[in-house]
């Protein structure tokens, strides 16, 4: 791989209490690339994603072993401020979850909690982020209306805009299109394509066509283990392992 290494996971184990959900995972993520995490339900891909911005810290009795490096610094180091880390690694969730606030306030939220008070700066960033998320034209006349009045697809793009507003370096997407119809899904995929120039994107998806369409690198998870990872073209056309081939051809999972 000739691109810049952005994040690097080294021998990661994750436990829910005594249950080992992830086993010995090592995986690199490159700047300007989209990495797709695929695998059947319960294979640990979402758990893995949530380790990357320490969202799993919220789960009682969970435990992490191993290292996750962001720009060569371990994010699980005790000196790391979790809130600051999460403002560097944005997240888009499976179901659109805008706050019950106005469209403007949704996008401004991340800026406000990170201490930005300058009103013109906030207004500029809101406009810019909504533009980046390809939502501006649809909402520019009603940015002071409730975000909950938007359609599901618009809500999800709003959530992406909200994540973009604080200029994260990495964006984690947890099945961002699974709750959306095909047209809204297509818009999200086009958006991912646009955004990868500026961000490192890691996306969990159930949909293998989607992984093939949007990603540069694909990692296949099964039963808490990373089975195979390769360039997306290679993985989908010439998988090295039989297990991977069975999954991508739909023979199981």
């Amino acid at each position, binding site marked *: 791989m000739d691109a810049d290494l952005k994040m690097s996971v080294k021998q990661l184990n994750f436990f829910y209490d005594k249950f080992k959900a992830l086993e010995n995972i090592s995986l690199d993520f490159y700047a300007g690339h989209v990495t797709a995490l695929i695998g059947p339900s319960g294979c640990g891909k979402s758990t893995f994603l949530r380790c990357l*911005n320490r*969202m799993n810290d*919220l789960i*009682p009795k969970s435990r992490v072993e191993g290292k996750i490096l962001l720009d060569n610094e371990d994010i699980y180091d005790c000196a790391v401020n979790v*809130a*600051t*880390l*999460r*403002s*560097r690694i*944005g*997240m888009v*969730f499976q*179901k659109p*979850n*805008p*706050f*019950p*606030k*106005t469209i403007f306030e949704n996008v401004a*939220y*991340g800026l*406000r*909690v*990170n201490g930005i008070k300058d009103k013109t700066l906030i207004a500029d960033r809101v406009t810019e982020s909504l533009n980046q998320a390809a939502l501006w034209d649809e909402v520019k006349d009603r940015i002071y*209306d*409730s*975000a*909950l*009045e938007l359609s599901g697809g618009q809500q999800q793009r709003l*959530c992406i805009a*909200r*994540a973009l507003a*604080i200029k994260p370096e990495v964006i984690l997407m947890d099945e961002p299109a699974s709750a959306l119809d095909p047209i809204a899904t297509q818009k999200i995929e086009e958006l991912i394509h646009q955004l990868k120039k500026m961000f490192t994107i890691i996306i969990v998806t159930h949909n293998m066509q989607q992984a093939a369409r949007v990603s540069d690198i694909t990692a296949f998870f099964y039963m808490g283990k990373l089975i195979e990872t390769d360039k997306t073209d290679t993985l989908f056309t010439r998988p090295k392992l039989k297990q991977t081939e069975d999954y991508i051809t739909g023979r199981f999972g």
Partner: protein
Amino acid sequence: MTKTDVKKPITEQLALPHIKYRKFKQTIFFALFRFAALINGTALAIILFFLLKNGYKAINWTFLTQPPIDSMTKGGILPCIVGTLYLSLGAIAISLPIGIASAIYLNEYAGSGRVLRIIRLGINNLAGVPSVVFGLFGLAFFVIYLKMGVSILAGALTLGLLSLPVIIGATEEALKTVPETYREASLGLGATKLQTIFRVVLPCAMPGILTGAILGISRAAGETAPIMFTAAVFFTPDLPSSIFDEIMALPYHIYVLSTAGTEIEATRPLQYGTSLVLIVLVFGMNLAAILLRARLRKRMHI
């Protein structure tokens, strides 16, 4: 038992009496449920009707704006109205912050453990303590031990304690209805837990918390036992000038007039009139809170 024919649809094989019986049972139960629901409305209607019928004659401008005169057989109840307002507002001012803070701790911060179980047990039992016990506690602790004397402060503190479990319960319920995804979204944007609570969770839960406050204030306003030892006196024509003053209060005034007054029979209209004022006052506070809640909901875009 007859064997059922697998080929026929099941509805054709059901015994007709069984179908009829099921329908009958359903009708009976629905009627019972409806009756139970109706009792609530009827009870309120009867109480209001009774109070209005017996009390409306007592209500006039003098009654609402003057202190009692002639051994409380004539005159008004202004000191009682003011006293009850002060006590209720004081109680809510004390219990709302403590109640909300406790509920936030229990719901957002505390993990599971023995300490938490003990705290919860404490709250549940606090809710079950009879109000007269609160009154005695207030007398022993606030009035005597902390030397507050019989005063608005001691009464408001006692009533505040009394309404605390209601407010904690309602706030916890309200916090539980805030979707976890809001918290995740906020944390995912780099907000701290405290920022998440103040900027997302509490605003979302506020309408529900207000409902708790309504319940709390209603209960506090109407209680007699907790204030009879701690705040209220038999008679004082002056309006309070500080929180260390003793006061008259509507529930206690009703109690006094109807059990210990000089002319119990002659003051019946005054007793009903006072009750009517108390009920209207409580309804008024509820209404204000309901309107506030509706406005919050609208502003929150829910």
